[in-house]
């Protein structure tokens, strides 16, 4: 699974390219978070931006794990609006990231979550732990 990181609105490197450089790009506080797992208002100003790839399945977990590990340590903004396919392995990694951010008291915000992400998260009973209940509740 490719995860894109970078400034909001700018072209972002692919996961492969990013994997080589392991660079972190900080995000300005312009991110409009729909839900927040851990309230960390000050920290969110310098958040790590993660855009999830359309496919977040077992096949892509190595890339995803790499990106998530790279993200942790900073507050994170996750954009799951483009997720078209996700399975238990993909969701489990996201849960691990959320729990990691909680454990280290760093913030995590959801910028967006696709209907597929919400549907699969609900089916596995993970909406609560992922902090997606608010988005799911607001979803049509």
């Amino acid at each position, binding site marked *: 699974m490719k995860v894109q990181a970078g400034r909001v609105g700018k072209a972002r490197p692919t996961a492969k390219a990013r994997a080589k450089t392991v660079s972190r790009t900080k995000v300005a506080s312009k991110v409009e978070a729909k839900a927040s797992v851990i309230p960390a208002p000050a920290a969110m100003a310098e958040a790590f931006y993660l855009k999830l790839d359309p496919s977040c399945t077992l*096949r892509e977990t190595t890339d995803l794990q790499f990106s998530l590990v790279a993200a942790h340590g900073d507050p994170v903004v996750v954009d799951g609006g483009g997720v078209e396919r996700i399975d238990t392995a993909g969701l489990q990694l996201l849960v691990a990231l959320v729990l990691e951010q909680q454990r280290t008291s760093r913030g995590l915000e959801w910028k967006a979550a696709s209907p597929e992400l919400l549907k699969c998260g609900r089916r596995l009973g993970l909406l609560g732990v992922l902090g997606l209940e608010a988005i799911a509740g607001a979803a049509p």
Partner: protein
Amino acid sequence: MSLDMDQFHEVFFEESFESIDAMEAALLKLKPGAADPETINTIFRTAHSIKGGAGMFGFNDIASFTHTMETLLDELRSSKLQVTTPMCDGLLQSVDVMRSLMTAQKNHQPLDLSVSQVLQREFERMIAGEGQPGSAAPATFEAITWRIGFKALPALLARGNDPLRIFDELAGLGVLDVVADCAAMQELAVMDPADCRITWILTLTSTAPRSAIDLIFEWAEGDCELSIERAGVTMVEKPVAAVPQVTVAQASAPAASLAPAKAAASPDGNSIRVGIEKIDELLNTVGEIVITNSMLGQLARHFVGVDAERLRSGLAQLETHVRELQESVMRVRMLPVGSVFARFPRLVRDLSARLGKQIRLQLSGEQTELDKTVLEKIGDPLVHLVRNSIDHGIELPADRVAAGKPEEGVVHLNAYHNGGSINIVISDDGKGLDSRKLIDKARAKGLIDADAVLTDEQAWDLIFAPGFSTAEKTTDLSGRGVGMDVVRRNIKELGGTVELHSEFGKGTRTTITLPLTLAIVDGQTIQVGTETYIVPLTAIVESLQLKQADSHQVFEHGELFHFRDDYLPIIRLHDVFGVEPRSRVLGDGLLMVVEGDGRRAGLFIDDLLGQQQVVIKSLETNYTRIDGVGGATILGEGTVALILDIPGLLRMTPPPAPLQKTGS
């Protein structure tokens, strides 16, 4: 990580086609009003596994269709619905639909959903209870609440069992509540994404039986810790089932793709699926070893000394082992003829219903084994012969009663070993063939002379003549006169023969004789000039020495010789193949009487060399087709010898033709 999905698709399609065959066989046993629960269970399980596989690979249309079918079968299984005749017909029709959808999906062609959608709507109507006799549906249903504990073991995801798909299927049974526990999860940096550490407590309220839940977890068995407890029961007016939804897992999910690999092994784990090309490769290599072994044997003959004897003895031992190996590989290619017979119960059922006849199909000898290639090619000729029996042979019930026969006619398919070949016999107790009618028709069509006198056998043989049909009225099943000659030609191409025996008013018996295999032939090596040829032993009648004076030149018939009560043409092989013979004088060589296509001829050759089993190498694949030559082989000394195609060779010579004009 990238996976070639095609190889998994291939396995899925292969498995599915087998499952559909099994489903069809079970459906044929389904009797309206008195359905056997085990039969329904078998059909349900088959539909369920096809649906699961199709869903996993993203073949949504197939998954959706089988889901509706499965729902209907589930209603039958739980006795909420009764089996009716339209239901049996619809389910059988759905087998055809699934076959055609699968074939289209396999060939990457667009799916024609017109029939499947009509059937799906029909099934939905049946599920709603329409068309059920009396008040089949009970007034209330027992809705059971199940408490299911599910904990994944490390291999669960890697084996393609995604809890997401499993829970989706459960939700299809009723109202599902899911609570996840993530307490056992490892830290992000050290966790293995393929090892699912989340555990779940599920609460399912459903009117479906416990077996339906078990079935959903069937594939995950051994890869999870599972507990299913009954937590409560309530009575409801309507079945508690979610809106039918098809579980469609990610087409690209590699985890899902691994499941068919598991499914490819047979349930008892005692067999594996191997591509036929791999076996052919093995057989080819074994053939090469046989040839090399034979070459070494010939070389060793010239050696002298103490070690030479040991070498020869070692080579003889090697030859025995190689022959055994060759036979073992040949046996791998053999399949029971029952796999071809399996298509006939449906054929007989459909055709007899359409023609208003009562027909019982008897099958025997299904375990008789035949080479896979032969088996694949014998299917169509057999279908034609069985159709003929049903259409032309078996009479209408009233006619049968009038003829003093039981109303129900019998079509019998039998297979058995007969020496080095296999016989398949198609017999019926129908009206048989009327020789006089056959002869009259042949005369009218100009196939025989007006004054020709034919034996019964010769008259029956007319049926195999191109353009011959005995049906007074042509139906869409048979009777267009384009069938039996094609049947005979196809069987001949397999190296087999077809014979017909009939008794007017009592029935017809067609016997097909086929070689056990197409890869090896028992042959007689013969010499013509400096060349060596192989004649298949099955084609040889006898060999004799002739004096020049015994042959006669006959106008328009070439060179003939007297053999028993017949005159046979002489085929000089050196002329056919353009070889310089040792002698052109008949008395200096031998005449080998051969038979093929019901005709006989004498092959003039220089000498007989010996008999041996040879591995056939296709000339068409390696070079080009040559008339009169069926293939080639490599002899012990390393030279190539042509294998003669006797029927082909006979076709190249003018026919002696008892049916032809002999001149007045």
